[in-house]
C-alpha cells in the first residue's frame, strides 16, 4: 500500500494486520467488549479482546487508535470502536462496530429510563436519588482534577483553562462559540516551533 492512500478495501490502515475481521466478526467482537465491561473498565476490555484474544491489531496499533479516538470529537470508547471498524472495513465496518458496542448497553439504559420516568415521583425513590445524585456530582467534579496534574508546569495552559472556565461558568457563554474563539488561540500558541518543543 502506498503511503497516504487509504481506500475502503480490507486492512486499509493496518498494512501488517494479522487478521482481517468480517462485518459479523466486528459486530460480535464489539458486543463482547460491551458485555464484558458491564462492571466497568471499557478501555481495558477493548484492548484485551481486540489485541490479545482476537489478534486483530498489535498493541501499538491499538494505542495509535486510542490517540486518534481521544483527539477527535466524540466519546472516547465509542470513537475507539469506530476506529477499529473503520481500520478494516471503512465506513460500513465503523457503523457495524459502533452498533455492536452501544446496542445492548443503550437498550438497557432506555429500560432504566422508562422505569425512572414511571416511578421518580414516589417520595421514597426521590429521597434515594437525592443521595445518589450528590455522589454523581462528586464524580463530575473530579474529572477536571484528574487531568490537572499534567498542566501544572505550563502557566499558559492554566491561563487558557481559567479563561475557558470563567467564560463558561461565570460569563454564561455557550460552549460552541467558546471553543471557536479559544481553539485557534490555543493552536497558534502551541504551533510546533523550534526551541519551544518542550511545552
Amino acid at each position, binding site marked *: 500500500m502506498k503511503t497516504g492512500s487509504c481506500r475502503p478495501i480490507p486492512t486499509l490502515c493496518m498494512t501488517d494486520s494479522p487478521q482481517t475481521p468480517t462485518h459479523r466478526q466486528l459486530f460480535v467482537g464489539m458486543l463482547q467488549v460491551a458485555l464484558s465491561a458491564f462492571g466497568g473498565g471499557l478501555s481495558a476490555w477493548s484492548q484485551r479482546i481486540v489485541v490479545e484474544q482476537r489478534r486483530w491489531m498489535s498493541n501499538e496499533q491499538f494505542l495509535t487508535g486510542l490517540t486518534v479516538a481521544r483527539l477527535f470529537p*466524540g*466519546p472516547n470508547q465509542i470513537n475507539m470502536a469506530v476506529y477499529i471498524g473503520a481500520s478494516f472495513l471503512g465506513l460500513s465496518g465503523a457503523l457495524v462496530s459502533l452498533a455492536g458496542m452501544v446496542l445492548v448497553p443503550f437498550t438497557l439504559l432506555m429500560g432504566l429510563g422508562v422505569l425512572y420516568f414511571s416511578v421518580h415521583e414516589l417520595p421514597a425513590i426521590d429521597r434515594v436519588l437525592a*443521595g445518589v445524585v450528590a455522589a454523581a*456530582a462528586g464524580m463530575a467534579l473530579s474529572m477536571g482534577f484528574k487531568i490537572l496534574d499534567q498542566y501544572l508546569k505550563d502557566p499558559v495552559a492554566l491561563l487558557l483553562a481559567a479563561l475557558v472556565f470563567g467564560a463558561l461558568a461565570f460569563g454564561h457563554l455557550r460552549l460552541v462559540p467558546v471553543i471557536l474563539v479559544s481553539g485557534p*488561540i490555543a493552536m497558534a500558541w502551541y504551533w510546533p516551533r523550534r526551541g519551544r518543543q518542550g511545552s
Partner: protein
Amino acid sequence: MTLPLLLASVAACHRVRISDLANLAKVIGEFLTLSLFSFGGGNTLLAEYHHLSVEQFCWLTNSQFADLYALAEAAPGPSSMIVGLLGLGAGWPEGPFWALISAYGAEVAILLPSTLVMVVACLSWRRLEHSPWRIAFERGLGPITLGILFAVGLKILRTADVTRAGQLSLPGVVVSIVVCVLMLRTRISPLWFMACAGVLGGLGLINR
C-alpha cells in the same frame, strides 16, 4: 410537587414539543452541531445538555437532569449515552412510543457526525500524524478541555446539590466533595459511592 412550584416552572419555561416536526428538526440540528464539538471525550458536553434540556427546551427539571446524569453514570456502557435519556424525557409526555423514537433519534444525532469525522480521521491518519496542524490541535485542545471539565463539574454540582426551592443543599455538597476526593485518591468503583450516598438519601440525610 406543590402546586405553586408547578405553576412557577410552567410560567418560567415553555416546554418544546418534539412531536411538532419543525421543533424536532431544530432539536436534531442542535445535537448534530454539538456532536462536532464534543472534544476531550463525551463529558465536556454535559453543561450544554443541561442548557438545552432544562433551560432552552424545558423538557426536564433541574433535579430530573441530575437524576438522569446519575443513571447514565451508574449504568454499564459509555456515560455519554445520557443523550438517549434526555431524548426519552423530551418525548415522555407524548407517550412511550414517541419517547423511544426521540431517545434513539437523539443518540443517533449526537453520534453520527463525530463518527463520520472519526472514519475520515482513521483513513487519513498517516497524512495527519506528522502534520503541524495535528500537533498544535492536540496540544491546544488539552488546556481547553481542562477549563471545560471544571465548568461542567461546577454546573453538575449546582444542578445536583440544590433543594427544590433553589437553595444549595449543604449535606449534598459535603457528599459531593468527599466523593470527588475519593475518586482522585482511591480506585474504589464509583458504584459504591453512589450506593452509599443513596442509603444516606433514603435515610433522609440528604434533602432536596
